[in-house]
């Protein structure tokens, strides 16, 4: 990335940051999403800004002359950023589709002012997906079942994220007194996470830390 093709993030929603910082954030969000078992809050603004940049770069390149080495390097960079973005959104979509019942239930329980994990578009897709699935099941089998079994009862059969799975993480900011329950009978134990250290921990324990950027998953 350099100053040639990318102007400063012009979007008002994202406070002043350079393109390089935005890219770093996208990459971090991508990795976190990739390694966390559950869906993390969406970063729609970031995605929008990045896409904007991409389109700008694309235009700049189309002006460059044929066979310019700089153009092909920039093009490569575009491809890589696009891959990160697409992969990030793809992973989210996969999780949304997989845990659709769980997520929609969670959504229903949310208070008015609590932000959703999904972006409005993602939510729409999740609703479509759930409805679509239900139609399919109803039409083919449920409709023909005895009357006390006609309901889908999604919560009984649907998958939900395993928050007890273990994740690799790197500490970005010092966090003290993180409660970790040990396997034995000693009960919980508090540990301090030193900045820069790396750990393997259960996801449930560190989930809140990811959201405020204190740790990143690797």
């Amino acid at each position: 990335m350099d100053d040639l093709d990318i102007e400063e993030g012009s979007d008002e929603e994202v406070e002043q940051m350079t393109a390089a910082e935005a890219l770093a954030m996208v990459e971090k969000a991508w990795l976190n999403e990739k390694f966390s078992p559950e869906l993390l809050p969406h970063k729609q603004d970031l995605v929008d800004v990045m896409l904007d940049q991409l389109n700008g770069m694309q235009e700049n390149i189309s002006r460059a002359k044929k066979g310019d080495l700089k153009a092909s390097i920039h093009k490569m960079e575009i491809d890589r950023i696009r891959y990160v973005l697409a992969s990030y959104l793809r992973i989210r979509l996969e999780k949304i589709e997989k845990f659709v019942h769980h997520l929609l239930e969670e959504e229903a329980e949310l208070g008015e002012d609590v932000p959703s994990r999904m972006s409005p578009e993602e939510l729409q897709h999740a609703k479509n997906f759930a409805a679509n699935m239900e139609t399919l099941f109803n039409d083919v089998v449920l409709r023909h079942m005895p009357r006390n079994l006609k309901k889908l009862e999604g919560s009984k059969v649907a998958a939900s994220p395993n928050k007890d799975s273990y994740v690799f993480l790197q500490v970005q900011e010092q966090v003290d007194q993180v409660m970790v329950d040990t396997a034995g009978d000693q009960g919980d134990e508090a540990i301090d996470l030193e900045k820069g250290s790396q750990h393997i921990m259960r996801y449930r324990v560190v989930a809140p830390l990811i959201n405020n950027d204190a740790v990143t998953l690797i």
Partner: protein
Amino acid sequence: MYGEKAVELIRQLHRSPDGSLPPFNEDGIRQVLEEMRVLFEQNQADVNKTVDGAPGLFPGVQLRHAALERNKRCLLAYMFNRMERLRAMRWEFGSVLPPDIKYNLSEQEIQWFSRYNKSLAAYMRSIGGPSGGGLDLTQDLKPPKSLYIEVRCLMDHGEFETEDGTILLLKKDSQHFLQRSQCEHLIRQGVLEHIL
């Protein structure tokens, strides 16, 4: 034995290799549903008798109910796993299914597929806001290594127009050096093979 047919359905799906879809077993599903109907009627009769005071029928009712639940679970699992595979195919082949796969689908599954397509397309279009123009998530499935890659044509595909407007003929056993982004979907369709 109760539930045997339902398990057979699951086995059938399980046996078929990943990435393929065996024909929709409508007959099998009908048989399971029929079994469920019989079970349910027996249960009803027994429940009515119990209400009328006949003793000792309750364990039988419970057993049948468990079998009913199990059958339901199996049918749903069958449907769900087929749906999952179908979903994977959307990502692999794009919005148009190859005819040999379509042949193995039930009417309802085809409907599901087109609705899924629609929802996904709407979502992908919406990425990047109203002005962003969307992002095709089914592209860029693999991390890019280089801008250009060498590909080999595995079948006669006919003419192919690249982004910059040049037309080239993709003929079996010809070998090309192309921009990766342009031929990615052809590689996934099996028209081209990426040579390392």
